[in-house]
């Protein structure tokens, strides 16, 4: 699906056409955020863990080239073949080359946002290779010819009747049977056949350890493992910033990742791939695709610390009410809005404005990325670089307001953070400028100021 002529406000408006669905989307993601809070609170040293993770990642950024060389050395020693790709095109060509070398024209793939970023599926299809996404959410959106709308919850924009209709069409499931258990079972049978018959599997990478040359893939479904352990060739695609220095550092990241993502104490599977299986091949493709440029941008390099947990999506009032597709880029949400303009300022000039700068994203980020500050800085860069007119043309009502009233948002952010703890319903409704702009709810019985005065004690 191409959104090339669309910008965030227009696409958000489309998403908002179905109001009950938007409400559901908003509430469901908020519920995930609440689960995250509960998981975080169960760990007394949570803040110290975040600080530690952030400092490990700072160390990674400062020594990235050295760690990558070390990783390559170790992985090669382990029998893994390491490839380097400077952009998405090269990455795709490497994958295609490996498949062609083995005479393979069908592949299973587990979740990898990098391959979304590189548009691998389209490319392989054009070259006669069939790719089956095996993460349930990704398989659903793949059947519907849609991109994922969330990095952790790819089909969060859909309701169960949508999934039921899609499966009825593609898997001939009983029409109108919307039971998630039934639908999941149908997908299990459908995908098991694929796992058993495909000779190549591609997975993403959550962490790669410089010290040992191993990489870790986390899933709940077990699809990365089902694919990789049954295939003759396992290709792992990885943005080079996924590197961490030592194996023991995994303890910090594995404690943070799932708790931040879904509130689980850990994903069901955290698989450490160190050597290829006997008789099988293992390849890893290290991809740049703009990352080295971002590394050179002092104000934005911290975005490379991201571990793709999705917490900043779930907490973001704009994301929750505009949906992932309104960001027209592979990685949506607050972090995507920082990463995308690095790749193409003109095309993604709208995204840093898709935020209230309330700061909630920065507060939940497990590696302490200053997300909302970076969004603010991107706005200034984009104006200075002459994209002001592009932005204005988009007719962003809310945005012009943001630009002329930065103080308001700073205030709203602070108050919002406080209120979110005390009374989340206020954020979800009256204080959320997105909500206001959309449908002008009936005015609150007392203004926020009055309410605040009365309730602050």
């Amino acid at each position, binding site marked *: 699906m191409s959104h090339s002529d669309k910008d965030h406000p227009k696409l958000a408006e489309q998403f908002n056409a179905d109001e009950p669905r938007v409400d559901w989307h908003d509430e469901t993601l908020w519920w995930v955020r609440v689960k995250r809070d509960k998981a975080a609170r169960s760990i007394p040293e949570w803040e110290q863990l975040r600080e530690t993770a952030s400092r490990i990642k700072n160390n990674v950024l400062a020594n990235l080239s050295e760690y990558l060389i070390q990783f390559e050395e170790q992985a090669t020693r382990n029998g893994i073949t390491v490839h380097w790709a400077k952009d998405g095109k090269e990455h795709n060509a490497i994958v295609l080359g490996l498949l062609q070398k083995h005479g393979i024209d069908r592949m299973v793939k587990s979740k990898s946002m990098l391959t979304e970023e590189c548009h691998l599926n389209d490319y392989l299809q054009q070259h006669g290779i069939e790719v089956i996404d095996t993460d349930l959410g990704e398989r659903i959106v793949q059947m519907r010819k849609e991109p994922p709308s969330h990095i952790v919850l790819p089909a969060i924009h859909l309701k169960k009747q949508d999934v039921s209709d899609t499966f009825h069409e593609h898997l001939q499931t009983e029409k109108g049977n919307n039971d998630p258990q039934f639908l*999941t079972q149908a997908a299990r049978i459908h995908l098991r056949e694929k796992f058993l018959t495909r000779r190549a599997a591609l997975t993403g990478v959550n962490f790669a350890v410089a010290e040992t040359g191993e990489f870790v893939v986390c899933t709940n479904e077990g699809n990365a493992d089902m694919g990789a352990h049954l295939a003759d060739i396992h290709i792992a695609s990885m943005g080079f910033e996924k590197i961490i220095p030592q194996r023991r550092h995994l303890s910090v990241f594995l404690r943070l990742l799932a708790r931040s993502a879904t509130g689980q104490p850990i994903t069901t599977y955290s698989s450490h791939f160190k050597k290829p299986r006997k008789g099988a091949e293992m390849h890893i493709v290290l991809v740049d695709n703009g990352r080295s440029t971002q590394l*050179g941008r002092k104000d934005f390099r911290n975005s490379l610390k991201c571990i793709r947990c999705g917490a900043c999506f779930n907490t973001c009032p704009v994301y929750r009410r505009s949906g992932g597709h309104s960001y027209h880029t592979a990685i949506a949400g607050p972090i995507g809005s920082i990463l995308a303009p690095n790749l193409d300022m003109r095309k993604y000039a709208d995204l840093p404005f898709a935020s209230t700068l309330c700061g909630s994203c920065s507060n939940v980020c497990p590696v302490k990325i200053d997300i909302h500050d970076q969004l603010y800085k991107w706005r200034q860069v984009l104006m200075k670089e002459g994209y002001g007119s592009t932005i204005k043309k988009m007719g962003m009502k809310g945005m012009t307001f943001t630009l002329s009233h930065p103080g308001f948002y700073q205030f709203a952010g602070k108050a919002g953070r406080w209120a979110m703890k005390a009374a989340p319903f206020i954020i979800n409704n009256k204080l959320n400028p997105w909500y206001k702009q959309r449908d002008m709810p009936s005015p609150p019985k007392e203004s926020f100021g009055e309410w605040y005065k009365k309730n602050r004690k």
Partner: protein
Amino acid sequence: MSNRDQILQTIKNNQPATASPLPDIDFPPDVSKPACDKFIEALAGIGGASHLVKDYEAINAIIKTAYPQAKRIVTTCAALPAGEHLSADADPHALDNVDLAVITAHFAVAENAALWVTEDIVQQRALPFITQQLAVIVKKEDILNNMHQAYQRIGAEDYGFGTFIAGPSKTADIEQSLVLGAHGPKTMCVFILSGK
């Protein structure tokens, strides 16, 4: 210059010059509750079941009654008489009809109910994923407190493949309703061997 060298050179030029020393990882374990109790609680929270047992005989007895439907039972635990023992050379595709796999774990982690399993003890990497149901045996004294202790225990161990398994395979991709048994095991049960 090759691609690789070019990428590495740009990274080197662009990486921050400020030194950022690695932090200490020093998190004291939470000892408010015995590790075993915490593990059982955490496992229940992620959809797993547990049995405290005193020996392998007890495990055998439970397997016989708890999995009456299981036709093909595979075990990689030498001490267990029930079940077919697996060879490392078997074709993993042939495991598709395994109803129950009984494996051992090196250790368990109380904070998240994860069990550490490596290739050498499962024989076949695919086994704990492809089986319809999974049972894991762990010694009670091998239940560690948190993930930091876990990696201390793993240390510099060499393995081809290792994985933390925490509960049955699951998904919530359809309207966030939790369904157990996505692609892997639909149930998971842990036998905690107490030795007494």
